[in-house]
């Protein structure tokens, strides 16, 4: 339980930070596609007996590079969709080859509150730290190119390289979080708190902090609720994310109206 708590806290911090940029850049779709597709990596890793986190990392980063490279010359959202379904299709193929039990597949997709062991903590912490360092280094260029894409390009920031770096960060964040929240609900934890924060605060650093705070609140509540009811943690993350976003939107309306 303590291990889950520690892991979930790290996950929420990273999701809040990375999600803030995903929302700012309008990459909600990529933030959904990379984690969902990456589940195929875990299924493949189970097939050859490798570590699940390694499989997740390979597929998440591979998917990010695929979206980035193909998106350069095609329609970004169509390419994202195609990369996603290819990875999910591979996941279906790997699943048909394994003798893995259904509950394990299920917890991979939707999260498992007690699915984290002490041995998982170190890789999760390492990946999380890598994400945070990458975001700290990229902070100014990312912020610049997300808010004023044309100006930043004319000032010599390469948009393609930045996008690729960002997608890879999303991929890394993904592989650390899936064991806790599950492949399908990871993106909810990234974009719902960040969307809520963005609709209330416009200063980037404050919005970032609020986004992390909301993500923490969502995850902690979800863990407690999931532990009490034995219902899947993903359910609470998705529903609480929606609640946070709707509340923030309503608050914003009230504040604007006054």
């Amino acid at each position, binding site marked *: 339980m303590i291990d889950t708590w520690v892991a979930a806290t790290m996950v929420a911090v990273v999701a809040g930070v990375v999600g803030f940029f995903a929302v700012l850049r309008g990459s909600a*779709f990529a933030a959904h596609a990379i984690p969902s597709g990456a589940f195929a990596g875990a299924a493949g890793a189970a097939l050859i007996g490798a570590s699940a986190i390694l499989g997740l990392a390979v597929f998440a980063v591979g998917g990010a590079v695929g979206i980035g490279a193909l998106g350069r010359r095609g329609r970004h959202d*169509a390419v994202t969709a195609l990369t*996603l379904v290819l990875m999910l299709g591979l996941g*279906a193929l790997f699943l*048909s080859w394994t003798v893995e039990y259904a509950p394990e597949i299920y917890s991979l997709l939707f999260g498992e509150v007690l699915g984290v062991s002490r041995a998982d903590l170190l890789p999760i912490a390492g990946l999380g730290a890598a994400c945070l360092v990458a975001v700290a280094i990229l902070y100014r260029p990312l912020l610049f190119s997300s808010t004023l894409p044309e100006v930043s390009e004319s000032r010599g920031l390469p948009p393609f390289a930045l996008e690729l770096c960002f997608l890879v960060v999303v991929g890394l964040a993904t592989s650390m979080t899936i064991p806790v929240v599950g492949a399908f609900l990871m993106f909810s934890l990234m974009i719902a708190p960040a969307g809520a924060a963005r609709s209330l605060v416009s200063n980037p650093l404050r919005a970032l902090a609020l986004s992390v705070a909301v993500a923490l609140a969502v995850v902690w509540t979800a863990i407690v609720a999931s532990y009490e009811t034995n219902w899947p943690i993903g359910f609470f993350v998705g529903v609480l*994310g929606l609640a946070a976003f709707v509340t923030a939107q309503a608050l914003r309306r009230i504040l604007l109206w006054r």
Partner: protein
Amino acid sequence: MHAIFEPGFFGNGTVQTAAIAGSVVAVVAAWIGVFAVVRREAFAGEALGDLGATGGSGAFLVGVNPLWGFVAVALAGAGGIELLGSRHRPARDLATGIVLGAGLGLAALFLYLDTSSGTSGVSVTVLFGSLFAVDRSLTTTIAALAVVPLVAVIVCHRMLLLTSLSPELAAARGVPVRVVGAVYLGALALAVALAALTIGAVLATALLIGPPATALRITKRPGATIAAAAGLGVFATLLGILLSYDSYDWPPLHNGWPVSFLIVAVVFALYLLTHLPVPRRSRSCSPS
């Protein structure tokens, strides 16, 4: 000949049902999908497909046919996206994502309840589907349901095209942009629900986005694009069925590769083919 068409392929009832249902769904998905790609609503299509997982698992829970679950939840999801999101791209994507997150959360709960009430293996069926599991009696229902979105896009064809290519111009010409958008989203929801039934909730996007995106790289004329997309969709579906039928003696397990994966693989391969460097392509495509 027998190396390609395994003996008994054409006489097999399951294969015939799969081929008929799959082709109908592929045509509808491709037709609707052309507009989804032009309108950059691939994410909405993907989200509505994934929401089908919620409907499918909910339907298992209350014991009705998953088809109705797919349809009901996809329509509800379309309403939710329309309600929460504005017309502006990033805000709309965000709303789509948040509705999708809540829907997938519900799917998690339904699947959990399904599993604890003793129907194991539901998750894989609902999420990844199988054309070979389509019941013969359902083909008529599928065909009937397929007519609805087709009629909607045919009736709205010109308005839809104009609002998709230039919403400002359409608004200036007096086209009710928001209404057309909502009708389209409804048609999209139905088409995706049908696709979700046949190749699985999370792979429905393949038939919706793949063939149209491929067709749009070959031609730019609306009619030709729709025809090409429908043709490519049917081709991918039938080839997927054929490969899956042949795959019964493929390694590693010798019990068949999933038909959904094979369809997705063909769709993706077709898309990649249009990315092959063709030296004269750029000149012939640009309007002279």
